[in-house]
């Protein structure tokens, strides 16, 4: 194949996509453009930038060259048309919904989601008049039944936090297509190294970059990726995209920006007006993390499988929920959607219940007891005594945070050391 037509592989894109040598200094690593604002060439250039007639930099709340490298990098890895970097994974979700929903509208969400997202959808969104309707990813018909004329989107996680759940993206994409609404997939736990939701019909991908993409537990960040697949003008249901915008002298964003109009709408209507911009310094740290994503993610998965297998043989352990285990309920879906590995976040149950959970997190010496996932370090949490403490016992069980449940995020340490720490903590 001619060199010009070769398509680079995932590891190459992880290092190079978006990161060209700086045009003025020649700097090869991506510079941290730690500046609020950018000078205009002249008055006419300023007018073109503000009118969205020219590509360029104005003010870091709207865009920044370091953040832009991160945007292009993640968009390229996901196979999307454009990205929008944002202050956190939660901010990504708000800005996506802001572009799609009007007060009184509904969206359907999988009830197997990160607990923080369940809170955001159930409570915070009420103030905007955005109504969530929950569906069960283990029964696709619940998504079909939830569709109403007010439905504007469907939201799922590919691998769902607290882990151990693989969502049937393609089946839910079919429901979304029939309903004429975009499918949003939170791909935080899988990362594009393990799964590319756009290949299965996702129209929008969101990330908490805080986790495996950044990968080193040092920066909060989020990302919105536009797949470029959704026709925003067909049913005229999305006024942010298909109607003339008074903010931009009557411009119609879908008509003007074609298959990356959604990312532009999130930037010039969402990020610009709501304001959750990512710091360029965080963008730099996350970019550096992404350069080693393929190496790290594979090691995360290999370590996690070894730990899950080891735990499932232990007398103290009642059950292990990891789709990479041969007899797991999600094993078939895992082989389809995450063939290289089932991620590094999963839960298991202790026969000793609540007290055994508290004892385990107190006894570990290498694992860190904290509320994050996706770090180089191995992490542990006992949800019943921490994140889910305020719920009743029945609610805890429903949320997958029963008294016996422990969640792990397996890091990149030597496998023997990870297992040894769990062993001493279980038997101490």
């Amino acid at each position, binding site marked *: 194949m001619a060199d010009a037509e070769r398509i*680079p592989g995932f590891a190459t894109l992880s290092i190079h996509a978006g990161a060209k040598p700086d045009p003025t200094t020649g700097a090869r690593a991506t510079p941290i453009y730690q500046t609020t604002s*950018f000078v205009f060439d002249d008055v006419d250039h300023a007018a073109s930038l503000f009118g969205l007639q020219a590509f360029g930099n104005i003010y870091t709340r709207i*865009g920044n060259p370091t953040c832009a490298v991160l945007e292009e990098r993640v968009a390229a890895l996901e196979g999307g048309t454009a990205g929008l970097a944002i202050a956190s994974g939660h901010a990504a979700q708000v800005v996506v919904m802001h572009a799609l929903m009007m007060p009184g509208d509904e969206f359907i969400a999988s009830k197997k989601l990160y607990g923080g997202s369940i809170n955001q959808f159930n409570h915070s969104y009420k103030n905007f008049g955005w109504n969530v309707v929950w569906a069960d990813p283990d029964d696709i018909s619940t998504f079909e039944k939830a569709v109403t004329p007010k439905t504007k989107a469907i939201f799922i996680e590919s691998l769902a936090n607290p882990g151990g759940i693989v969502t049937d993206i393609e089946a839910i994409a079919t429901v979304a297509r029939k309903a004429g609404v975009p499918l949003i997939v939170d791909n935080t736990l899988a990362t594009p190294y393990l799964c590319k939701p756009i290949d299965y019909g996702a129209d929008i991908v969101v990330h908490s970059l805080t986790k495996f993409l950044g990968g080193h537990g040092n920066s909060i960040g989020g990302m919105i990726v536009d797949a470029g697949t959704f026709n925003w003008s067909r049913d005229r249901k999305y006024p942010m995209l298909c109607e003339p915008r008074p903010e931009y002298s009557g411009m119609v964003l879908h008509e003007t920006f074609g298959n990356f109009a959604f990312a532009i709408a999130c930037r010039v209507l969402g990020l610009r007006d709501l304001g959750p911009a990512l710091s360029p310094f965080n963008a730099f740290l996350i970019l550096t993390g992404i350069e080693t994503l393929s190496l790290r993610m594979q090691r995360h998965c290999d370590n996690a499988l070894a730990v899950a297998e080891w735990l499932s043989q232990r007398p103290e352990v009642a059950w292990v929920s990891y789709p990479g285990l041969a007899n797991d309920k999600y094993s078939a879906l895992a082989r389809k959607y995450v063939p290289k590995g089932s991620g590094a976040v999963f839960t298991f149950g202790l026969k000793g219940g609540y007290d055994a959970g508290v004892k385990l997190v107190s006894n570990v010496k290498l694992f860190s007891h904290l509320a994050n996932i996706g770090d180089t370090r191995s992490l542990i949490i006992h949800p019943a005594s921490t994140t889910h403490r305020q719920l009743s016992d029945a609610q805890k069980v429903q949320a997958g945070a029963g008294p016996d449940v422990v969640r792990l995020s397996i890091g990149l340490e030597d496998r023997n050391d990870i297992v040894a720490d769990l062993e001493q903590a279980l038997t101490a």
Partner: protein
Amino acid sequence: MNHDSYPDSYIRGILNTVKTIAMVGFSPKENRPSYFVFKYLMERGYRVIPVNPGHAGKEVLGQKVYASLPDIPEPIDMVDIFRASESALPVVQKAISLKPRPQVVWMQLTVRNDEAAALAEANGMKVVMNRCPKIEYGRLSSEISWIGVNSRTLTSKRAHTLGKGVQRMGLTHDTVQGGTTAATDIAQKKP
């Protein structure tokens, strides 16, 4: 030429050779895509001549608007068609009869007419369909990367600024293609 996907080298070759572009279906309204493209390409050093019978004789950004291609009193390198796909064939027929004959027919994003393309190619012209020259210029110069768009190019070579301020870049540095966005194809398959 396969009109479903173009090698970057083909598009870069066109944008690096043409100097004078006639824009058929130009709108003088500032919020219309054709106006954006018109202004952007002029700022990148192209001579762009607007064509629209409804506005013939007017001047927009210092350029006179012509009613039709044969009215333009100077040689044209490329005809950019901002019209519905059905209207592309008569525009191509007119372009072919120009002397000298333009080297390139370019149909905007969403505009595709295979009959018109075949006719232009049979007459020795290069054809691009369903693409926007502003987006393609932005992609290959890396300018579009500033707004988070996947330029689908990788390079270890520094881009050259156009000299008029730092926020305008040229097309002289070479790139390799950086991964696919199958998006347009997927969109076409989705009902």
